[in-house]
């Protein structure tokens, strides 16, 4: 199977600071792949290395099946990295025309189609310096889409968008993958958005890969049970280190099949149980627990 991106021991250091350790990652084609991590995790460094903006300190990668990363390969990739990168004196239409010339891309009417797709037709002749953050984000996305990329790299694409814009972005991302066959690597801090739109995710922390897999697999079978009980101190003692006090009860991070045994143990230990409620773990829970465990390991 050809992958959109395969990294082998890929790493980057700035002096004594390691931005990314030896990263082994394979991103299959034809899906939305999320790259998650707290600030400083190495996400932007990874994406900048893939785009040839930063030279790796070690390891290598294969992009769209190619190891020789030059402009010919990179022209098959569209990217929007960090804040939108626009010329303030260019209009939206001119920004796309400039991008087309730079890419050596010609297709009649493509600029208009892209402007319509990102919802900027009415602002096509306004200069970028007059744009709101959301409009800048849309224009940068349009520039990334212009040359019909096989791979789209989006770093925080919903920054500055209103709720309707976020919904449109989510729809657009899924359309690009499901209808146009584009592969998307998406980095975001909005984990509920990632959970809704991504097929597979990698979680980075301190420059290391700490979790990777299908979103459904990462969140399934894991969760927490909330038990309204008294006395709480006794309940915490019986439930062990995975439990913490929450409101008028305790919250315990366990597998779903362990729940009946826990409730029986609490009753047998003299704890009055008033309510037990199961909550599936979200991607945010996975992210927080993974990064916390990794942070504890690192420190």
């Amino acid at each position, binding site marked *: 199977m050809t992958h959109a991106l395969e990294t082998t021991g890929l790493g980057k250091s700035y002096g004594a600071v390691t*931005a990314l350790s030896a990263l082994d990652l394979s991103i299959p084609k034809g899906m939305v792949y999320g790259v998650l991590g707290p600030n400083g995790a190495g996400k932007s460094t990874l994406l900048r290395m893939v785009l040839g903006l930063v030279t790796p300190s070690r390891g290598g990668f294969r992009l769209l099946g190619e190891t020789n990363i030059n*402009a010919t390969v990179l022209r098959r990739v569209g990217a929007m990295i960090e804040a939108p*990168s*626009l*010329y303030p004196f*260019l209009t939206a239409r001119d920004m796309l025309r400039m991008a087309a*010339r730079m890419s050596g891309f010609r297709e009649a009417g493509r600029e208009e189609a892209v402007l319509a797709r990102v919802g900027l037709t009415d602002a096509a002749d306004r200069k970028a310096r007059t744009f709101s953050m959301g409009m800048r984000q849309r224009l940068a996305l349009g520039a990334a889409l212009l040359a019909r990329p096989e791979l789209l790299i989006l770093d925080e694409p919903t920054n500055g968008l209103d709720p309707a814009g976020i919904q449109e972005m989510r729809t657009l991302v899924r359309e690009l993958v499901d209808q146009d066959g584009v592969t998307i690597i998406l980095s975001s801090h909005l984990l509920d958005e990632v959970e809704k739109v991504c097929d597979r995710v990698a979680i980075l922390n301190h420059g290391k890969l700490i979790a990777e897999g299908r979103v459904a697999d990462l969140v399934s079978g894991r969760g927490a049970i909330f038990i309204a009980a008294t006395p709480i101190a006794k309940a915490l003692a019986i439930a062990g280190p995975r439990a913490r006090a929450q409101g008028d009860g305790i919250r315990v991070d366990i597998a779903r099949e362990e729940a009946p045994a826990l409730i029986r143990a609490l009753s047998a230990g003299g704890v009055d149980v008033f309510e037990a409620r199961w909550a599936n773990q979200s991607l945010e829970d996975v992210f927080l627990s993974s990064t916390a465990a990794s942070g504890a390991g690192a420190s």
Partner: protein
Amino acid sequence: MIGQAFRAELFKLWRNRWSLFWAFGFMPVFGLVAGLIEETSVRAYVGDLLPYANPLRYGYAGLGTTQSSLFQVFAIVGAAILFAGEYRWETWRAILPRTDRTAIMIAKLLLFALAASVSILASGVGRFLVGLYDAMLTGQADAPSDPWLGLLTGFGGALLQLMLTGALVMAVAVLSRSLMAAIVAPLVILVAIDLTAIRFRIETGELWLAALPNFAGRAIHESGLLLLGEPDAIGVHLAIPGAIAMMLWTAVLAIVAIVAFQRQDLSRE
């Protein structure tokens, strides 16, 4: 790929009209207007200094005005917009995945050469028009026979000097990653060279003077004057070494910029 990058850069500069005018258009316009005012004033208060005008000689002088320090300041600003603008607007990440690093730098240098050439020619044409105005006032005009080689020499000298300035800005822009530094550092160097030049005279004919761009430029300009029939041209023998020196300086600075840019990590612009 250089051609595609050049087309994109040309489009971008053309759309950045305000900067384009101040960097490359203002001085020719200023030269034209100042020349017309000067001719009118001289005519009104002094009368005809010469019984005839020589518009082509005016045009040649116009080509030479681009070698003045004032003109160089505007050229520095123009070059800084071209070479350091991407750092200022944080746009390298938008264009580098679309083109090759060497190609984009060469394209920018070629675009600077084009803009500088147009600016030099516009200065020459502007002063030529002033010469025609003078001829209209005096009612007499003169022209050197077969002036083209002289004019071409003057144009070439001016272009070489501006290209050296552009390459200096290019190198500073890449090394500093700053628009401000790309303007200020070459200005300081320009002033330092001017101050150094005050202590020496081209009439001495010392060969090492050809290494200084203002002497080299002046020598080429003088050799153009000689070709236009001016017998009192000075420092002409420094013209060829000066041209070689300016080409070498330009090449070295451009190569430094391109090599540094090739190795530059753009973790942030």
